[in-house]
């Protein structure tokens, strides 16, 4: 079987989606882990942190070569995931032909499982905004304020401050929260679907993956959503 | 004279001997020989696939949209085979003997013996194809019992044995289609047999989608078109099951064997009203665990669960202690009718008896409890355990029952009543399965073959597959070996032209009657006549009346039929009208045959001929023959007799007491 066909058959297309999706999920783990460092500034931990922990971690991510290479991979995978997603959706939509007068709707499946393309589009739009907020100024235009730590030995971008500034705009906060909700629904379906696509059929494991998928989506997206919220309400802030 | 071409020699050796001496066709000649197969049920699909594998050029036809939907798919209970895996005393001889006895000594010994011989191979073949038969925990095949036997020789796949067997044959068929050895024609109906110089040489078929007529040539034609139980309108057969293919052949000269032998199955869901379009079988396998009873008191209107055990009449166990609930179908059906006619029937219509699983549920519950090492289990848990076992065995049947009736058979006993189920009669065939027309064969339910006057449960699947997988591949060679010189006859031959013209004319006639009554309504009326006067019990007067009524109905049909739509179109009304027209003619023949056979045997019960206890009474001295009817003209048939000689089994009055 030719590779080209292996990845483009009815199942092949889904395998591409699943593989890229799973990679993106693993990226999310890193991303949420790292960004959660801002919560160190919460009053239960160390209100004087002022984002130091986060800024250092972000700096590490920006400077390690491996991670920079992976970042290229990440962008590539995002693009493949998006393009393939649209191709898949377009192909699938074309298989119905004439539509139904009364449709099955939610009687057979969850709305979000049928709406992966729409949710994906929302996430995509969110991503554009998100990248322009942080990644562009940090990596491309490099017009972020700098801050020094460890008695002046370490000098890094003050991304924490940038976040804080961005999240003072209530509209942005709302858009971010909406983005997180889209992501959550996208993940609730995408997580197990990816494993199913990759051939996990054992009911016991599927049940486990299902719970993990739910837990993961809710946890990750709640954490993400809490970031703009807690900054907007100054629970976390550079004081 | 009818020559059944039974091979010489002792019964045990006939088939082996035959195979050893039969003419063969070499592979290069096979490629040039074309065979038409009508039907894709167990008989047709297995024949078409096997002949394709051998290298013949095969064309296979069915009226459904896929060969896998042939009516064999509906068979539920199982398939017999003399494997003796249970070590309970089964053998080829015993299967042979049970079948001959079950058929009330009206079948041909040599055929039945061959059937028993090949039965074991069928199971092997099906397992190899991937048929998922039920298995025991050790991984080996499981068996259950069926009526009319005292051994466990029935192989099954839950309540879907027919489906699984047919899918096996269908897959083999699809494989031959993919290889180009078989060409499949779905949504096609054979409407005429084409004969050239006294031999079957092809068919005229109608493409049911476009309405076009097509001509197809074959060096031989195999009819595997299933049973004609729908002549009774209500039956357990599929809506499309019909007699048209064999009826056309009959009118072209193929004799019809024992048309009156129809099987009424004892356990079907009762009729609910005028709207009823078909009846649903509850597999005979249920009688393994279900007990049949009616109240001892006439017109007892209490709910079944309120009637205590001592006020119930388990009439089969009472009348037939040796076989109990597992007596053959004809016996069980008549016993149910007897109780209902005597006023003991249950349900609103009073035309039903109970099939009760309560004691089986309890018994299995105890077994389960001890399997799980539990003692002192309360009654409810026992019942829960028991229900689980029953569910595994018959779950789909119970679900089906509940969907149709709205009652839960795990709690309330099923209500059942006999219904038309199977036709033992069919085209007369010789040992080689050839009809009285050269080159025309009949396989499966549409031939009269192996079941005599009554078929035992789980034997039809066996016969269909035996015919298709293991008999026809040998016997057809004996004919085709002489046909290798016959070139493919172009379908421009006048015989094809004339046959097509005749079909066209008939279709036009049907369309042009432009009367007021639908084909469906005629079918219903025919069914009522047949059921009332030629059903579970028959008598001379009723049969004579039926014949006149049917002749009258035929006149009315041809003068007052109404069909909408057009010929050159997808037109199910026209398809139905053609089938009903043939059923009406067949109905008359069935009644004539029933009238002529003034004895009771198997499914044919003549009220004039019964023992004092109301059991069927045969008259071997007068009727030990197969009735083979030759069509000689409108309403006219001539009877030919094939005397049956029993060399091994000694016919006795059947007893299941």
């Amino acid at each position, binding site marked *: *079987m030719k590779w080209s*066909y292996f990845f483009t058959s*009815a*199942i092949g297309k*889904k395998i591409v989606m699943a593989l890229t999706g799973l990679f993106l999920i693993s990226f999310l783990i890193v991303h949420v882990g790292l960004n959660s460092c801002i919560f160190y500034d919460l009053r239960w931990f160390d209100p004087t942190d002022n984002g130091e922990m986060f800024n250092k971690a972000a700096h590490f991510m920006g400077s390690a070569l491996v991670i920079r290479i992976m970042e290229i991979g990440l962008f590539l995978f995002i693009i493949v995931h998006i393009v393939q997603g649209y191709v*898949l959706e377009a*192909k*699938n939509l*074309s*298989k119905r032909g004439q539509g*139904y*007068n*009364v449709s*099955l709707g939610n*009687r*057979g499946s*969850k709305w979000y499982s049928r709406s992966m393309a729409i949710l994906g589009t929302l996430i995509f739009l969110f991503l554009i905004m998100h990248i322009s907020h942080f990644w562009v100024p940090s990596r491309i235009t490099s017009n972020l304020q700098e801050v020094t730590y460890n008695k002046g030995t370490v000098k890094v971008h003050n991304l924490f401050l940038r976040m804080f500034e961005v999240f003072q705009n209530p509209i942005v906060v709302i858009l971010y929260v909406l983005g997180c909700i889209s992501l959550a629904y996208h993940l609730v*379906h995408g997580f197990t679907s990816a494993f*199913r*696509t*990759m*051939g996990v*059929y*054992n*009911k016991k494991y*599927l049940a486990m993956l299902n719970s993990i998928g739910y837990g993961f989506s809710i946890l990750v997206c709640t954490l993400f959503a809490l970031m703009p919220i807690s900054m907007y309400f100054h629970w976390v802030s550079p004081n | 004279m009818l020559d059944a071409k039974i091979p010489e020699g002792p019964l045990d050796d006939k088939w082996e001997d035959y195979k050893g001496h039969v003419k063969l066709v070499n592979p290069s000649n096979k490629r040039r020989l074309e065979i038409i197969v009508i039907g894709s049920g167990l008989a047709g699909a297995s024949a078409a696939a096997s002949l394709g*594998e051998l290298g013949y050029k095969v064309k296979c036809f069915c009226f459904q*949209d*896929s*060969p896998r*939907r042939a009516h064999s798919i509906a068979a539920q209970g199982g398939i017999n085979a003399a494997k003796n895996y249970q070590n309970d005393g089964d053998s080829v001889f015993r299967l042979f003997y049970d079948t001959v006895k079950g058929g009330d000594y009206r079948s041909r010994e040599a055929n039945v013996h061959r059937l028993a011989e090949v039965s074991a191979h069928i199971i092997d*073949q099906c*397992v*190899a*194809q*991937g048929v*998922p*038969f*039920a*298995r025991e*925990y050790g*991984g*080996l095949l499981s068996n259950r019992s069926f009526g009319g036997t005292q051994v466990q020789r029935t192989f099954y796949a839950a309540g879907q044995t*027919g*489906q699984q067997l047919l899918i096996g044959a269908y*897959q083999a068929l*699809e*494989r031959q289609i*993919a290889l180009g050895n078989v060409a*499949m024609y779905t949504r096609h109906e054979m409407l005429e047999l084409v004969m050239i110089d006294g031999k079957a040489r092809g068919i005229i078929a109608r493409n049911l989608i476009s309405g076009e007529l097509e001509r197809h040539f074959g060096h031989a034609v195999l009819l595997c078109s299933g049973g004609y139980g729908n002549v009774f309108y209500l039956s357990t057969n599929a809506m499309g099951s019909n007699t048209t293919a064999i009826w056309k052949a009959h009118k072209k000269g193929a004799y019809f064997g024992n048309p009156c032998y129809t099987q009424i199955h004892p356990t079907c869901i009762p009729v609910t009203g005028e*709207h009823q379009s078909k009846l649903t079988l509850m597999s005979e396998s249920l009688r393994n665990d279900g007990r049949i009873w009616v109240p001892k008191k006439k017109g007892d209107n209490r709910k079944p669960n309120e009637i205590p055990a001592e006020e119930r009449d388990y009439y089969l166990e009472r009348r037939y202690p040796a076989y109990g609930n597992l007596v053959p179908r004809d016996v069980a059906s008549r016993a149910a009718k007897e109780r209902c006619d005597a006023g003991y029937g249950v349900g609103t219509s009073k035309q039903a008896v109970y099939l009760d699983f309560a004691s089986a549920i309890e018994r299995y519950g105890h077994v389960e409890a001890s399997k799980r090492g539990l003692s002192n289990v309360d009654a409810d848990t026992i019942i829960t355990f028991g229900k689980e076992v029953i569910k595994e065995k018959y779950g789909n049947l119970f679900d089906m029952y509940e*969907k*149709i009736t709205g009652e839960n058979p795990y709690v309330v006993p099923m209500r059942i009543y006999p219904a038309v189920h199977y036709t033992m009669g069919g085209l007369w065939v010789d040992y080689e399965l050839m009809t009285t027309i050269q080159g025309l064969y009949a396989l499966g339910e549409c031939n009269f073959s192996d079941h005599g006057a009554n078929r035992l449960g789980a034997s039809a699947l066996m016969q269909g597959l035996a015919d298709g*997988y293991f008999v026809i591949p040998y016997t057809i060679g004996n004919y085709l070996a002489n046909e290798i010189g016959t070139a493919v006859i172009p379908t421009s031959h006048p015989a094809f032209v004339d046959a097509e013209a005749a079909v066209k004319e008939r279709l036009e006639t049907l369309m042009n009657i432009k009367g007021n009554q639908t084909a469906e309504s005629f079918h219903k009326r025919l069914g009522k006549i047949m059921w009332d006067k030629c059903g579970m019990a028959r008598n001379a007067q009723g049969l004579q009346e039926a014949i006149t009524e049917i002749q009258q109905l035929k006149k009315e049909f041809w003068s007052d039929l*109404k069909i*909408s*739509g057009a010929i050159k179109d*997808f037109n*199910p*009304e026209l398809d139905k009208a053609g089938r009903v027209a043939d059923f009406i003619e067949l109905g008359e023949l069935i009644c004539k045959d029933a009238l002529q056979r003034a004895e009771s045997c198997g499914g044919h019960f003549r009220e004039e001929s019964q023992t004092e206890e109301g059991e069927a009474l045969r008259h071997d001295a007068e009727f030990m023959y197969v009735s083979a009817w030759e069509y000689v003209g409108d309403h006219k048939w001539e009877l030919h007799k094939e005397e049956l000689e029993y060399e091994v089994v000694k016919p006795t009055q059947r007893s299941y007491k």
Partner: protein
Amino acid sequence: MEHYTMNLTLKVWRQANNKSEGRFETYQVNGISSEMSFLEMFDILNERLVIEGKDPIAFDHDCREGICGMCSMHINGRPHGPWHATTTCQLHMRAFKDGDTIVVEPWRAVGFPVIKDLITDRSAFDRIVQAGGFISINTGNAVDGNSIPIEKAKADASFAAAACIACGACVAACKNASASLFLSAKIAHLGLLPQGQPERKDRVLSMIAQMDKEQFGSCTFTGACEAVCPKEISITNISRMNKDYLMAGLSSEK
């Protein structure tokens, strides 16, 4: 069981043939008994139409026992109607009540073109089976049935998959008109048995290629197929098929 009669409004898709445009036609049917089956209700309507000299509604059906897979109506937006694990022919009128409006459409999928009214062409399923849905064994080659013991759990799972009746409801319900549930049922049926092993890899690859050719979509695991399948075929079969596909695709040398 209480029985009752009802009057209903039917909105049925009528289409003369594959080439013509279709439209909905509305019919009033009265005095329908709750004991009737759904198709018997159609029989009554059709009888009336024939008497009125109109073209009756064409629909596929044969066994009326829920096993042949012929019947195929999209009833009020759900393939085979409102009852769980039930074919159209097994649906009974007690599922409805007096005054209901029932919308009936054919299966909608590019792979199932409409032939007439509610009848579609499902021959694509046969061609998918032709691509490899079998075990290549000629008649007469078999060994004794008990010479290959099969683990009961596997035999049961194989049977559960083999229960598919090829009705096409899964395709009709799937937003992608994917035939994956049907296909995976066949692959599981054969792939779970020892007899099916020799051809297991080729089978999955060629059957999937055929499904692609027949214009069915990809599975995105929404689960609609499983929800409407009258034979309760499990969607896990699709994962199993995907696993087979991965294994076969990665190990194939072509």
